[in-house]
């Protein structure tokens, strides 16, 4: 990990880590990997325990009242931090892009929502774009392909940042997908409400992954990764699935997403 630029005020590097509800529940390792990467880059990281979920499930289902109730808990928890970082394009996009809309007509909460929104970043984008991190010290033997999550790509502008960091991982060879811009079919509740359409999209994604012959697929959003891993297992494939933070932090010494525990 490179040294952080000297001109950055150390007090300003206080980061509130938004673990995300999926990582909290499914894959704590992703939260700890993010924590490690941020601390290695010189941040002082807190994990405010008032956090639960960003509220996206309700927001995307048209339930704005529920979304606001949940969003307020996030805003209250993260207001003290100069930076809010999440290992997810989708959750950071919710906070950064959608919170201001969610409270657009609420005179009391609007400014608070906007303040939190403006300080919220996706993990790999924060490391590279804000902290200027160029390299990590990690080893991952194998060929990997990368799935760009739609919200990371289109809401948070995350495309080159994770790839830039992956370049410094020893032993790792990146093989790009044919359709890098294609949705994996997760879409939150969409995957449960329209299983046939969603299933078709994720099986197309898995076919694209298979054609790279990479032995691992990485991504920056656990929602997509659960979807992809779930489909790969259903197809009987053994392609490993990790969050990019786990690889960058050299924390891949555990079963990948959806893998049986062989210990």
């Amino acid at each position, binding site marked *: 990990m490179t040294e952080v630029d000297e001109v950055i005020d150390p007090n300003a590097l206080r980061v509130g880590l938004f673990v995300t509800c999926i990582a909290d529940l499914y894959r704590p390792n992703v939260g700890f990997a993010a924590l490690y990467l941020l601390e290695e880059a010189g941040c002082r990281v807190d994990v405010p325990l008032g956090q639960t979920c960003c509220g996206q499930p309700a927001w995307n289902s048209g339930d704005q009242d529920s979304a606001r109730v949940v969003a307020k808990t996030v805003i209250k928890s993260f207001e003290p931090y100069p930076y809010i970082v999440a290992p997810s394009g989708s959750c950071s996009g919710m906070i950064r892009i959608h919170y201001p809309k969610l409270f657009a007509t609420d005179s009391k909460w609007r400014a608070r929502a906007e303040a939190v929104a403006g300080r919220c970043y996706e993990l790999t984008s924060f490391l590279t774009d804000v902290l200027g991190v160029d390299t990590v010290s990690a080893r991952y033997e194998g060929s990997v392909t990368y799935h760009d999550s739609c919200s990371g790509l289109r809401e948070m502008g995350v495309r080159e940042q994770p790839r830039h960091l992956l370049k410094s991982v020893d032993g790792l060879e990146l093989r790009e997908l044919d359709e890098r811009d294609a949705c994996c079919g997760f*879409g939150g509740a969409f995957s449960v409400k329209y299983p046939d359409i969603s299933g078709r999209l994720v099986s197309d994604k898995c076919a694209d992954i298979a054609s790279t012959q990479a032995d691992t697929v990485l991504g920056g959003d656990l929602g997509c990764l659960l979807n992809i891993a779930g489909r790969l297992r259903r197809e009987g494939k053994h392609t490993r699935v990790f969050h990019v933070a786990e690889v960058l932090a050299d924390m891949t010494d555990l079963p990948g997403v959806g893998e049986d525990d062989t210990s």
Partner: protein
Amino acid sequence: MKVTTQQFREEARKALGDEILQRALAKAKPGFINKRKKAVDALPEFDALRADARAITEHALAHLDYYLERFEANVVANGGVVHWARTADEANQIILGICEAAGAHSVIKGKSMIAEEMALNESLEGAGLEVVETDLGEYIIQLAEEYPSHIIAPAAHKTREQITELFYKHHRQYGKTKRQTEPKALVDEARSVLRDKFLNADVGITGANFLVAESGANVLVTNEGNGDLTSTLPRVHIVTAAIDKVIPDLEDLSTLLRVLARSATGQEMSSYTTLYNGSRRPGDLDGPEEYHVVLLDNGRSALLGSEFHEMLRCIRCGACLNHCPVYGAIGGHAYGWVYPGPMGAVLTSLMLGTDEAPDLANACSLNGRCNEVCPLRIPLPRMLRDLRAIQFQQGGRGVRGKFALQVWAFFASRPNLYHASTSLMVKVWRRLAGKRGVSTFAPFAGGWTAHRDLPVPEGKTFTQRWKRERGRTQ
């Protein structure tokens, strides 16, 4: 046409299992995407043009009354007639009236989505007129007794083999008894059959890509030239256009044409771009004797200034359809009405109502690619989400899991209770799963496991581990 928006789920499932359709879709999709990308990459100022195009359409919409009246005045000055229709029904009656007054028996048509919206063919045929579509794709689906599955490639769902059989069946009456299998032979055969129709029709009906206020011109973009024959050969030319097609002047037109063809087919310009200024003038060698423009509102003026206002910027290029993963998987017919894909999901929900089309706003992963490629940058995902919010408030049929969301919000806004519950959930789940990494059932989310397994949580929750390893913070 029969509206089947209520059967979206069933139609989508059928489409996914329809091998012929899947073959046609798989063939069409990469072509559209790659051609557009190539054309856009070759034009560094494309994004600047998009911004201009957006400003032009917003300006026109902000002064819609002025430009529509100006357009009308210029059409009249050129010797044409403008008819105003509030509804599809009114527009159909106007067109029937024109056909009747002209003593017409046969009508030829250029491709027009507005005519599809009006179900114009049914109306004309119901009055005993012969109607022949002249756009090749439209002609094919007319023979198949279907409707367009794509707004610029109406027969995108048909394979060449199906077209061979359709022509074989319907062209025997014209002495064409050979099964043609090559694209060129198929096109030649259609051309030869259509030639007589062009020459003998009484009325030609076309749509309009744009209406130019400063000159009264109606602009038509095609790749087949059929629009030009339809407009100039019959005695009467009728243009059907929605009111949101009007733009101020020719400068604006050139900007819009540059983004339209690139976004639609990846061409720099379409093969034929024609400006029609009205009926034959004294001394002209050809052209219709009568020229009519039917301007249709059909709910559009109600969108002006609303949260769905931006939908009126749409120039019907089809880029959102071509890049939509859902459209790419199920094709256009499953959407159940005239307009499919992202723009169709919004327009149909608005025009028919979300009760009539409960699934369209919801059957989208909100991946945002439509918004990314839309030349007019219409915020389609935002609108789909807004439609969901409207549905949720109204409690209509599209709303599912309302109670579950409220229960979830109750927990998610009480961190201590939430974390206690998730810890317990993970513990039970892990115990049930044993050492397996996935489960094949999903409590409360059965749809998930129809086509994939559900990964099992890693172990204790992050919050549990954090508290243990770092103690409480804050």
